[in-house]
């Protein structure tokens, strides 16, 4: 394993042949987050099949999303896109009366060049519901990047009178701060509370709980991301809205959370107070978990862009990371996170893992067989086959759907990580580790 004894961050790029979720999956958590929204995915049966199966039981809960399934007549332009969308959106308005309809463009609308951005403004006026257009397609993006495209589109929305009325008239001690990234409401409150302890007031979130509650974003506002996959949103806020981006590590793990708050305070000229103590407390609550994972090795195959932050936290916990696979690496947006990763490795006296962009799952499996890591973070397509070969896995998608942000939720991350290891402790004595029927 001499080839991974690195002292500096190194990036590689492979074939891009890896398994991940289609970015349209973001409707699953965004429709729950934005409570007065409706998501219309304009695509084919393939898109519908993915959503139906990936989201499992959610689909039976009469969700506020649907497919506009394209037929042959739509592809060959025998049907008029505008009329078709008008018919569907009018029905959605009648049935659900949402405050906003999101149109999720897919690979198909991209290839047939359906002018969604052009149709939306006209239709918006006709049916009287705002329409936000995004292109969350598999040609360009992976999994969580879907949220990025939606938030970037949302950031560009014109400000309505309603929203202006909603502006909170609070006495600001510092320049307005907008946080961007979709998080469950309880995590939103937790992070706001942590910041309030430092006298930092959050002016607004992108997205908010309701579409009508999104505060207007204006020039010179400070903005800060809570998730590593939001680089388009960050770019949009900087370039279109002339906001100032606070480039911080992400609030994942107690180390990340502290660094995130510190960076925000720093930019806002506030002296952080009691953060060190708070972080220490959290770490001391994690001792049991850390004992279990210390010195163990881990391999990220890469599919949701949370990989750098999670690896950084787990290295701080004493784990050895062999490889960080990641679909897409924005070195500028993740600059502070990458710097913290490097620093963490040096402080923990461990080598700096190789970061593999656009990985090749097939090659990765060869490397996994060679390195024999204690744990592989991977998608469901590879998890069972790896388990059958005696390799412990954790399903990466769970990190996207679990609460992992802030001080409070550090335990949840370790709960996920240690699950397969705990199970092994129970099963080890049975001695059956190999279940595969083929060699490879």
């Amino acid at each position, binding site marked *: 394993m001499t080839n991974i004894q690195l002292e500096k961050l190194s990036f590689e790029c492979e074939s*891009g*042949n890896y*398994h*991940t*979720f*289609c*970015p*349209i999956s973001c409707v699953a958590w965004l429709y729950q987050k934005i409570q007065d929204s409706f998501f219309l995915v*304009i695509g*084919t*049966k*393939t898109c*519908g*099949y*993915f959503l*139906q*199966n*990936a989201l*499992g039981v959610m*689909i*039976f809960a009469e*969700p506020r999303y*649907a*497919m*506009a*399934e*394209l*037929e*042959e007549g*739509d*592809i060959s332009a025998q*049907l008029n896109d505008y009329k078709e969308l008008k018919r*569907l959106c009018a*029905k*959605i308005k009648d049935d659900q009366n949402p405050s906003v309809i999101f149109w999720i463009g897919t*690979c*198909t609308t991209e*290839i*047939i060049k359906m002018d969604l951005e052009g149709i939306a403004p006209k239709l918006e006026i006709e049916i009287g519901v705002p329409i936000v257009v995004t292109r969350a*397609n*598999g*040609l*360009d*993006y*992976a*999994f969580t990047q879907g949220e990025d495209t939606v938030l970037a589109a949302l950031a560009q929305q014109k400000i309505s009178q309603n929203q202006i009325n909603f502006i909170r008239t609070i006495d600001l001690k510092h320049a307005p701060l907008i946080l961007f990234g979709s998080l469950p409401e309880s995590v939103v409150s937790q992070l706001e509370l942590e910041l309030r302890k430092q006298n930092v007031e959050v002016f607004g979130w992108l997205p908010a709980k309701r579409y009508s509650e999104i505060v207007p974003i204006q020039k010179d506002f400070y903005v800060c991301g809570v998730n590593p996959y939001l680089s388009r949103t960050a770019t949009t806020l900087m370039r279109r809205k002339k906001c100032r981006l606070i480039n911080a590590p992400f609030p994942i793990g107690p180390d990340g959370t502290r660094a995130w708050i510190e960076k925000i305070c720093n930019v806002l000229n506030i002296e952080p107070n009691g953060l060190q103590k708070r972080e220490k407390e959290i770490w001391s609550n994690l001792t049991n978990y850390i004992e279990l994972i210390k010195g163990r090795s881990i391999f990220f195959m890469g599919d949701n862009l949370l990989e750098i932050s999670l690896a950084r936290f787990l290295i701080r916990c004493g784990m050895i990371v062999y490889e960080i696979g990641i679909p897409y690496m924005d070195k500028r947006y993740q600059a502070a996170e990458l710097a913290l990763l490097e620093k963490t490795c040096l402080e923990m006296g461990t080598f700096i893992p190789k970061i593999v962009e656009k990985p090749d799952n*097939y090659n990765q*499996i060869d490397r996994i067989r060679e390195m024999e890591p204690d744990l592989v973070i991977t*998608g*469901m*397509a*590879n*998890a*069972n*086959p790896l388990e*059958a070969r005696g390799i412990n896995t954790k399903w990466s998608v769970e990190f996207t759907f679990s609460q992992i942000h802030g001080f409070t939720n550090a335990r949840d991350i370790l709960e996920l990580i240690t699950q397969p290891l705990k199970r092994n402790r129970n099963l080890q004595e049975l001695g059956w580790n190999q*279940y*595969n*029927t083929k060699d*490879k």
Partner: protein
Amino acid sequence: MILTYWMYEGPAHIGTLRIASSFKKVHAIMHGPLGDDYFNVMKSMLERKRDFTPITTSVVDRHVLARGSQEKVIKNIIRKDKEEKPDLVVLTPTCTSSILQEDLNNFVQRSAFETKADVLLADVNHYRVTESQAADRTLLQIVKFYLNKLKHINKIQLRKSLLPSVNIIGSLNLAFHNQHDIAELKRLLSELGIEINLVVPEGTSVDNIKMLPQAWFNIVLYREVGLLTAEFLENEFSMPYTSIAPIGVIETARFIRKIAEIINMLSPTNNINFENYIDIQTRFVSQSAWFSRSIDCQNLIGKRAVVFGDSTHSAAITKILVGELGIQVLFAGTYNKYDQFWFESEVEGLCEQTLITSDHTLVANLISQLMPSAIFGTQMERHVGKRLNIPCGVISAPVHIQNFPLSYRPFVGYEGANQIADLIYNSFTLGMEDHLLEIFGGHDIQQFDGFSKENQSRKFIPVVEWSSEAKKELENIPNFVRGKVKENTEKFALSKEAQLITLDVIYQAKESFKKR
């Protein structure tokens, strides 16, 4: 454009992938964008596969849109040929790649020069065929390809086996209880003294396709996948086939008789007669025929049920409910729209109406209108049942992970009949319990919410007022029939132009409905 929330069948490429990955040593290369490889997840999750799914995506991205994917696809085919050494590579278009209109066939031919494996392009149109139709076609395509290829070099094994033998066609992965069905069918056939020549495609290598004509005849287990192949083999090699699904004791008997008929036709000296076997199996080995005769099953007679699923299972379950258990089927339906003619002729006279649709809301609406005592359908109907508080037995795909049971749960043959009888019986409220509830006025003290606005809007019946005693009386009626009683009473009241439903009206209504 169609506004859809849910669908019964997947896109065409899923059907192709199910066939390709059911064969041994066949690798599929999917030509599609990132994230379209969700099939691998389903195979690994639902079927809990231990091995990596032999499917690779040749990713369509921006560069491909600009330059075309020729280089990439060919490179991927050759790479997989070297790495996996498959017998066959199937290039599978997706809905995205089919709009690109690249000459995939050309790529296939080009790469075939450099591969040891055979290379085929799956010939399915994404916008015209469903998952099961695509599976049916892909299976035919592969079988035809190998038989044609071998025909030129006279390598097809035409000599029939000495003893009667069959091919089982249409065993494939992610199919409803398929593994158990195949095991049960093999057992049944071995008891009849019939040899299994080949099971295709599950677990068979393409090398063995040349042996297909050795069998005396073919069995198509599920008509959704395999019929085309059976028809081809009949035309090409004069192999008869049966597509009777041996689900339920009556249909199993019909299936066995059909086999006897085929064997006797092929070899008249054989003069096979399975009547004794059928009789003993039905009366003594299998429990289900006796079960439906037993006293407890009398409570099922005249109960009302609805059936929905793929055409094979929906038709078979309807026949069992009506023919074997005396249950009234209000509607039987299928989402295999292309098979409407067959389906309707199979269930003709057995149910009050047929429903041919792929729209799940239509099915749900009809269920809530009819309020049956039990539903037999797919996972979607199970959820409808949950919402309406009606029990549901899952009898067909689409299914969840719990429909891939670890234990032995065939649907075909005599053991299958036992399993289905249990499923049906357990879906209805147990007979005695039902009876006692009616006598003692039920044990549920929950407030009946049938009067809330939300519930009213779902029904088509205009609102009639209920007096307070009448409401109380309604609450005394067991939960599971309450909705039906309420509806019937309201209908009755309307027909009599009564404005207010009193106790009197309830009883009158009850009496009037009893008479029918």
